[in-house]
């Protein structure tokens, strides 16, 4: 029964990891940018939420309605300025620039918010409570909600990419930037839209993690970015649903590892990650580039 519990917990945590990963995957799939500041931006979203709640005393969920659009706009602006100018030089430059961004954000957060970790306190029973199945399986409502949000986000992204005008342009630009230009599409603008989507999901990831656990200035790189990477690589680069699969596999590996020995939790996840890299480097979903 303890093993069943581990697997259930792992699957549900996978939803959180998919939220971490889908923005990273989208940005790589569309503009070939590996955003090393991805995790830090999630943390920024969490801190903004904490700030908004502290200052305005709006209910937690209301603050999300502010944070997600703000991060989306920030994504568009960053893409059109810093990231695009790096892209114009070379794809490699984007690695350096986003790494720089990551360092700046982390140290900025340390400066202004200290190294103390904070959680997004909701006070909602839905967030803190859990329900039991049998005597050994306890499931937190929050994890179920996060998993559901992840599925809804992925469905939404897929729907947007497949039927909307900008979704079509995003896929066209990902296929052939020049040909899209010849059809009148400004690929920089389209990249900006894709980045806005990615940053929106990053914001959700940061908020989810802030409620599930605690945020500190370094959480972005040492947890969120690494887990996002692992989920993306396990699932298959550039595939949206692959991020959910990758997240679930990572989550289950961690929980099963923790079941064997609590100190194996993180290690087990990375061992699976390494095994996939060696045995199936294209990821578990072999289909290329959903986006």
């Amino acid at each position, binding site marked *: 029964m303890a093993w069943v519990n581990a697997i259930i917990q792992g699957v549900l945590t996978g939803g959180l990891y998919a939220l971490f990963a889908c923005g990273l995957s989208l940005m790589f799939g569309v503009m070939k940018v590996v955003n090393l500041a991805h995790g830090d931006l999630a943390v920024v979203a969490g801190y903004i939420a904490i700030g908004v709640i502290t200052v305005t005393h709006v209910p937690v969920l209301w603050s999300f309605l502010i944070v997600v659009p703000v991060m989306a706009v920030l994504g568009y602006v960053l893409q059109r300025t810093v990231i695009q100018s790096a892209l114009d030089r070379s794809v490699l430059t984007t690695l350096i620039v986003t790494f720089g961004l990551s360092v700046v954000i982390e140290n900025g957060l340390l400066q202004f918010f200290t190294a103390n970790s904070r959680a997004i306190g909701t006070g909602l029973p839905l967030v803190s409570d859990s329900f039991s199945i049998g005597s050994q399986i306890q499931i937190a409502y929050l994890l179920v909600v996060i998993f559901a949000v992840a599925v809804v986000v992925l469905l939404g992204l897929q729907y947007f990419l497949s039927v909307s*005008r900008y979704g*079509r*342009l995003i*896929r*066209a630009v*990902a*296929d*052939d930037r*020049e*040909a*899209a*230009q*010849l*059809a*009148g*599409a*400004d*690929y920089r603008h389209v990249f900006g839209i894709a980045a806005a989507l990615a940053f929106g999901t990053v914001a959700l990831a940061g908020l989810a993690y802030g409620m599930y656990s605690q945020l500190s200035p370094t959480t972005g790189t040492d947890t969120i970015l690494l887990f996002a990477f692992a989920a993306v690589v396990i699932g298959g680069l550039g595939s949206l649903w692959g991020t959910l699969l990758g997240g679930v596999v990572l989550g289950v590996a961690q929980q099963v590892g923790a079941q064997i020995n609590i100190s194996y939790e993180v290690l087990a996840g990375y061992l699976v990650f390494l095994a996939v890299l060696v045995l199936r480097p294209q990821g578990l979903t072999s289909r290329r*580039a959903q986006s």
Partner: protein
Amino acid sequence: MVRWAANGASRERAVKGAAEVGGERAESGTPMLEVRDLVVHHGQLRALDAVSFRVFPGEIYAIIGANGAGKSTLLRTIAGLHPPAAGSVLFDGTDVTRLRPERRARRGIVMVPEGRRLFGSLSVEENLRVGAAYARQGPWTIERVYETFGWMRERRNQSAAQLSGGEQQAVAIGRALLGNPRVLLLDELSLGLAPVVVQRIYGMLPQILAAGLTVLLVEQDVSQALRVASHIHCLLEGRTTLEGTPASMTADKVEAAYFGLAGATVPGPAQEGSEP
């Protein structure tokens, strides 16, 4: 290769076609497209060297030349994909030299790129929709493209990557037409396609032109170019070597201009040929 000399029938047709417009170009009004002293570098290589010409509304203007003559570079520069080192591109009297390709496309300079360049992960219809996304007002709709290319409607949901080369070329042309261009740039339509398919695609040009379009095309296949074009412009190593109506061309002249043979009227014709 220069194949046209062996093809007497098409030569005659070309002459006849030109004769119908009186043998002379109707050089009246503003040129739809004008290129002035265009210089383009590829690194150390001077891909285009002071090329100038004018294309008037309704013309089918063909750029011919051997591999590496700079034909595609010329077309790509007009579309905005290469920045010229010097010279300018004028579209309907306005200088568009500094405009980005997407801006030019929205104004009406649309290119069918070499190698089709369809969006492989998109369906046929999605490819067409991308072409229509920033379209000008005009006669072309997806419905009309389906009417023009009969087979396309049935296979509209297929992935563009699954089509044959000729079918892809048709979709690429349809995608470009949906932008409702004023000038259509066709880059090596025949590349990698069976002759029959090439014939069929060129055979559709009159139908496309009926919508009041100006065409600038690049073609390695000289016989094909002479057959469809109202004006021919030959490039050799980035320079103009010959310009005129197909009617004014002789086999020797074209051959000399195409290959840059000694003894032909090649020395210094760039200036001579580019003077309006």
